[in-house]
């Protein structure tokens, strides 16, 4: 048979393999012949709420826009249990589960996988963080400790800020905010992409003058570059550079001229470089290694007159300058070991150092070198059950070795309803400030002959040798996802036992001219017990509408002073947005924070409710969009923020964005 056919047919097989010419001539989709880059790989994907080993809140781009927020930190109010205070206009703090002053030291914060937690004070300098709110893809907040994946300081929560890939950006976008309270913001963003590369440059400046009662006007310039190069379908390089420079005012108006704390400027300066190589064989099999370098060099001098008995006023300056550096190398490997077994493991080395005569009373570099190794396994022994276990082994040069395990199980009761149980341990290393601070003020040279070698004053003097704080956290979660109702929600019952909390008091005897006790840090022998309930829900009740609602309750039991009311017992948030015909959209964000006390602030902060409103209209010209929005903050009127001196007023600003 075959022989007969061969007489008939002369066969010509003209074959093509991967030929770019084909893609160019446009007739055949290129990916029939060549591999496309792997776009949605494990490190880019978010874990579905039903499978996550802990409670994760996601603030997505839609919420970011609808909230009307100008600053990243304000978005965290949309996470159950979170609350935000402004110590001053350019010094906000976001906290969760209390135990916080102006520095929330017990949360890890990452930008695209790189920690921005301050090794000096702990917490994050949110206002000067060189990330534009417009550049954010989403913020994932892990509620509860997650040291098994993120290491020390992932103690009460972990905040992951994920920026938008330049590939998804319009070519040019410019935003202008103009309004009351000195709001003058301008942001220009440019994105370009070709076959193998893409980048975005964002440049902008934020100006405001938040409180009229304190000097806190600020002008902060931010710059941000994110670039990618796809080496081949499986290998990609990415690079980021972020920097901020600026000036903010500090001090107080009600202090007589020439005294300590009169209004003075503080110069901001920080820069970060980060690079990552990703090798993704498949969505579940990925390796990456990243390196980053960070520097921060703020400058602040409070000049005043020393007024001593029998002496004329002597000019004196206290500076709060420091030079901070951080170098970090990290790798992670994700494996799919089988249909029901996935594993991620990795390691990290980090060195953080600060030089500051102001805080350490010498010019020596204070540093903390850290190395860690972690592994995490996700196992589905059968369809309904998921088990997630992880361990982190960590070593740092200040407190030595630590071991943080975590175990969680999820059980799918029936479609759309999942129960979660979790238990985990975490620790927080002392900050360089807590461990090494020595704020000793030497007398001015003119006084030296009279002081017999004594310093003028010693305000902080750490006894050092602090140990890590420890937390044991247990939680029960319930996750609901009912697509036909367009409803999803989650509930988290938590029970956290914190021990060896680093606390401080002004009880260390010192020899100085003007005082005899200094503030010292120690590990408290008293434990802190936190328990409570958090609920959150997302619902699309009708066409174009979306509701994100959260409510949280917490009870803190402790014999330590100033801890019980360090978090509001009740807090709530509700974000409603509605898109209307003719490209009009409306949103309202309501927040309620119960009465509480920011540690070391002058006094208790009464409960407050606040409402932010946003009305926007989009104009289209071809593919160009112009968005005009009016945002009113604190529509319900004035309330106190952080302490009784700071008064939030009702203010409005106009926002214009052009994109093409």
């Amino acid at each position, binding site marked *: *048979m*075959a*022989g007969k*056919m*061969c007489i*008939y*047919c*002369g*066969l*010509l*097989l*003209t*074959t*093509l393999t991967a*030929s770019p*010419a*084909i*893609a160019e*001539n*446009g*007739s*055949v*989709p*290129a*990916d*029939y012949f*060549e*591999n*496309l*880059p*792997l*776009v*949605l*790989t*494990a490190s*880019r*994907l978010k*874990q*579905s709420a039903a*499978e996550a080993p802990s409670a994760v809140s996601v603030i*997505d781009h*839609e919420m970011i826009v609808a909230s009307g927020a100008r600053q990243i930190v304000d978005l965290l109010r949309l996470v159950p249990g979170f609350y935000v205070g402004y110590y001053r206009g350019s010094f906000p703090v976001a906290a969760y589960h209390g135990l916080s002053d102006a520095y929330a030291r017990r949360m890890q914060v990452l930008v695209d996988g790189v920690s921005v937690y301050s090794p000096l004070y702990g917490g994050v300098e949110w206002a000067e963080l060189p990330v534009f709110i417009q550049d954010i*893809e989403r913020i994932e907040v892990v509620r509860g400790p997650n040291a098994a994946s993120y290491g020390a300081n992932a103690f009460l929560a972990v905040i992951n800020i994920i920026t938008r*890939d330049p590939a*998804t*950006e319009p*070519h040019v976008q410019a935003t202008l905010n103009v309004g009351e309270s000195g709001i003058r913001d301008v942001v220009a963003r440019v994105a370009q*992409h070709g*076959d*193998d590369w*893409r980048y975005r440059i964002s440049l902008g400046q934020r100006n405001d003058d938040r409180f009229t009662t304190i000097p806190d006007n600020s002008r902060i310039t931010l710059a941000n570059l994110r670039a990618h190069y796809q080496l081949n379908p499986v290998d990609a390089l990415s690079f980021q550079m972020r920097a901020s420079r600026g000036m903010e005012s500090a001090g107080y108006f009600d202090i007589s001229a020439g005294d300590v704390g009169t209004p003075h400027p503080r110069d901001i300066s920080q820069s970060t470089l980060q690079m990552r190589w990703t090798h993704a064989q498949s*969505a579940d099999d990925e390796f990456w290694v990243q390196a980053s370098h960070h520097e921060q060099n703020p400058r602040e001098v409070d000049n005043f007159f020393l007024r001593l008995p029998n002496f004329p006023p002597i000019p004196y300056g206290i500076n709060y300058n420091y030079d901070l550096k951080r170098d970090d190398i990290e790798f992670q490997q994700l494996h799919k070991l089988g249909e029901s077994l996935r594993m991620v493991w990795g390691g990290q080395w980090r060195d953080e150092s600060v030089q500051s005569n102001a805080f350490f009373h010498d010019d020596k570099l204070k540093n903390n070198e850290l190395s860690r190794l972690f592994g995490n396994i996700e196992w589905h022994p059968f369809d309904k059950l998921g088990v997630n276990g992880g361990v982190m082994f960590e070593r740092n040069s200040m407190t030595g070795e630590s071991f943080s395990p975590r175990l969680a199980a999820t059980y799918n009761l029936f*479609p759309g309803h999942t129960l979660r149980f979790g238990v985990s341990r975490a620790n927080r290393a002392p900050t360089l400030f807590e461990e090494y601070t020595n704020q000793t003020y030497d007398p001015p040279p003119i006084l030296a002959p009279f002081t017999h070698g004594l310093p003028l004053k010693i305000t902080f003097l750490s006894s050092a040798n602090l140990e890590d704080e420890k937390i044991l956290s247990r939680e029960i979660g319930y996750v609901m*996802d009912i*697509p036909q109702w367009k409803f999803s929600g989650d509930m988290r019952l938590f029970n956290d036992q914190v021990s060896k909390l680093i606390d401080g008091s002004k009880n260390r005897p010192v020899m100085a001219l003007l005082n005899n006790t200094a503030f010292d840090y120690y590990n408290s022998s008293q434990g802190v017990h936190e328990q409570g309930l958090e609920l959150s829900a997302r619902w699309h009740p009708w066409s174009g509408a979306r509701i994100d609602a959260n409510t949280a309750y917490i009870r803190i039991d402790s014999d330590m002073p100033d801890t019980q009311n360090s978090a509001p017992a009740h807090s709530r948030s509700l974000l409603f947005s509605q*898109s209307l015909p003719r490209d009009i959209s409306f949103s309202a964000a309501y927040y309620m924070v119960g009465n509480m006390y920011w540690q070391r602030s002058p006094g208790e902060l009464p409960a407050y409710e606040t409402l932010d409103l946003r009305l926007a209209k989009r104009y289209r010209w071809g*593919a*160009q969009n112009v968005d005009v929005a009016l945002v009113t903050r604190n529509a319900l009127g004035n309330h106190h923020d952080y302490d009784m001196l700071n008064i939030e007023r009702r203010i409005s600003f106009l926002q214009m964005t052009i*994109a*093409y």
Partner: protein
Amino acid sequence: MNQKLLDELRQAGFSEAAMVSVSIGQKTLPGDTPASTGELAIAVGAQALSHVLNRTMARQVIAVMLTRTGLDEVVAGQPSRAGRDIYAVLLDQPLARYLNLIRLALPQRQRVGVLFSEATGGQLKNLERLAAERNLSISAAWILDDATFILRLDHLLSQSDVLLALPDARVHNRNTVQPLLLTTYRVGIPVVAYSEAYKQAGALVSLYSTPAQLARQVAEIAWSLSQGRPVMRYQTPRDFSVGVNDTVARSLGLSILAGETLRERLKQMPD
């Protein structure tokens, strides 16, 4: 592809001696000269078809691994097509098959977004009719240039529950796969695509025919022609595969039937 095709032809009974493989693009290897004068040529890809029409005297040509758009472009630009019988196994799956897949895999999603270029826009009317028959609605966006891709995609996604990617190199290429997959993922809209590579890159589900499946169909056409039986000129792929990206499905919180199950059920449905 060529190896798969050779295997299939061999299985269909074509002897090895008669097959001459000519590799890459328009170049013909020295060994193929006798064959190029033969009566039946199989052209793999658009360039190969163009080459066959230009440089050989083959009276019957079976084209494979190209889309209908690609085929039309090649044939229109070839005066030498006269007197030839051109047959083709196209890459384009029947539009109804895609829509059936959406109904099966994502029954909750009814608003289907599709990106068209000028080359493929002609399918819109037909797609709308087929969609209406299946209780689906189509939103279309036109990609005229790369510069406005993101803004047009964003706008389309605001009116869609699922994005259907149809083979069209002007819309879907290496340059657009990143923005398309990242933007759809951002808003939680799954992508139903047309190739295995697209699925691996991050589409939720893909409907495609493998080279082996296409080769089998080509071999059958060749066999029918050799027997002098009538053959439909342009054929959509008869056999196909459905691939599901489980990782993406899990992340989007979607429970999707297995690819093989979807394929079996799709086969029961009329195209």
